[in-house]
């Protein structure tokens, strides 16, 4: 299967958007080779600002550029963007409601060898809690490119999470990305897997294997985590009666929490969350780490069976 790193797709899409829209500017904090903003910087040196190793200033300068009518894309690793500069994002970007796009790469444990210090397992949670912030976690390179292009027309502070490792493509160019709209990849009445990011291809695999075992599991790509597609979650909870969430992120505060909030209030159903269980990452090869932290199709299958077993028996 064809594999593309979502950060690579970001770099190319940003360049394309920059060619279309002269207001687009890019900022980085000395990681432009890794986040791929360098691609934009090479073609548009006058619209690219490498602020050095200064993430707080990165967000503030992006806010100022937005005030001046630019559409800034600010990039660095997810752990620094959302951790070190959280308050700058809150105060200087979201509180005044500025149109700044934060595209953070190297999210999750697929960072790999750099280890736990660099593996952001909290960024979705940190961004989701800020009022007015949109949070997008694309599932593959195609969706990343579509999401970046959509940002040209989407006003307001937005966080987009991309990854370092090459991951499977699940979409082709005909895919229609819309902010806030979940994509139902597969229907199923035994349970529904709601996944984001690199866990979407794992969810697709899990559902196929489950079907061979006689379990009909649906799959939803919830690429917009905020504002979450309430309707899609409720519909899935009603139709299948059991939900599994899957994310390369802590089970606290991320997709699992967002889905739990919706179903517990509007359509209670058994829920099992696949994700990182309140621990930090560690050094290793991405594939090994995904295995070690239980972020695999097999883990999703087990979770689906657990969720199905929790369903109230029909009398």
């Amino acid at each position, binding site marked *: 299967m064809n594999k593309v790193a979502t950060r690579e797709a970001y770099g190319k899409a940003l360049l394309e958007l920059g060619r279309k829209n002269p207001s687009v500017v890019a900022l980085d904090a000395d990681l432009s080779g890794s986040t791929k903003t360098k691609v934009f910087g090479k073609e548009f040196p006058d619209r690219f600002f490498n602020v050095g190793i200064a993430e707080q200033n990165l967000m*503030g300068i992006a806010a*100022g550029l937005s005030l001046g009518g630019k559409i*800034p894309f600010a990039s660095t690793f997810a752990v620094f963007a959302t951790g070190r500069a959280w*308050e700058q994002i809150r*105060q200087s970007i979201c509180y005044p409601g500025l149109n700044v796009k934060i595209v953070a790469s190297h999210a999750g444990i697929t960072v790999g060898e750099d280890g736990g210090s660099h593996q952001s397992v909290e960024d979705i949670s940190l961004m989701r809690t800020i009022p007015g912030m949109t949070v997008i976690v694309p599932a593959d390179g195609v969706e990343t490119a579509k999401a970046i292009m959509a940002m040209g027309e989407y006003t307001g502070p937005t966080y987009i999470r991309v990854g370092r490792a090459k991951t499977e493509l699940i979409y082709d160019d005909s895919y229609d990305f819309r902010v806030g709209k979940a994509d139902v990849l597969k229907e199923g009445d035994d349970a529904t897997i709601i996944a984001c990011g690199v866990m979407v291809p794992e969810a697709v695999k899990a559902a196929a294997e489950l079907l061979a075992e006689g379990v009909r599991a649906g799959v939803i790509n919830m690429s917009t985590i905020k504002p979450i597609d309430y309707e899609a979650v409720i519909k899935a909870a009603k139709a299948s009666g059991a939900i599994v969430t899957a994310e390369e992120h802590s089970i606290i505060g991320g997709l699992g929490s967002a889905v739990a909030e919706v179903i517990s209030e509007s359509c209670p159903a058994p829920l099992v969350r696949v994700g990182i269980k309140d621990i930090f990452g560690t050094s290793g090869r991405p594939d090994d780490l995904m295995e070690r932290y239980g972020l695999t199709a097999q883990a999703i299958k087990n979770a689906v069976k657990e969720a199905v077993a929790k369903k109230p028996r029909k009398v």
Partner: protein
Amino acid sequence: MALAVDSIQGLTRTACTIRMDIVEMLNKAGSGHTGGSLSAADIVTALYFHKMRHNPSDPKWPERDRFILCKGHAAPVLYAALARSGYFPLDELKTLRQFGSRLQGHPDSKKLPGVEISTGSLGQGLSVSCGLALSGKMDEKSWRVYALLGDGELQEGQVWEAAMAAAHYGLDNLTAIIDNNGLQIDGACSEVMCVDSISDKFASFGWDTISIDGHNMEEIVDALDRAEAHKGRPTAIVARTIKGKGCSLFEGKVEYHGTPPSDSELAVALKEIGGRQ
């Protein structure tokens, strides 16, 4: 265009009016920051009633100069200047800090026309000012950015990230003014965490610097003109000020950092400030 009050004496009188507005609105609000609003009154007056090109009837006028109150807790001085310029009715000053008011405890750009960006969390405004100045440079605009910082605020590391960037990008359309009143909530800046040699610090980061008496209107106006004339580098004006300036009850007293004037203090303050007009 901006209300023109062209004489130094006229500006000094306007600063007294701004100070009276500040103490009155803080007394009415029952909370807020007296000392740091009063210390900045002359600087803010010079900007809004002399230096800056702005248009109160069109707050978003694209060619306006931009003012960013990095020390957002001094909101009353900004509100007084905006109201006296004509951005909103003077009566609205009485609503400071009340539920439903556009005059939030710290400036909110989503609520109040004339506020360029919400501030209040110290240390962030200079970065935003840099970004704004950068956008002006990119578009070859002649408008300038004025950032007013507190001296205690300089303890925030982000200020120095921004200082480095402003010099790196040659932002000569940016003027930072430091309200150097020497006091912060917990005491003298020199005792809490020394921020001395402010001019030297900015100079070593690649800025032009000008040191002035922040209550001498002639010096303020002259420094703002000189800053505009400097090319290739941003300018930091270090304005030596007195916290609570204008009323003997508050001057140099750290207790009035975040305490509003009581009714009796207000009477004294209005008399003393009015006596200077």
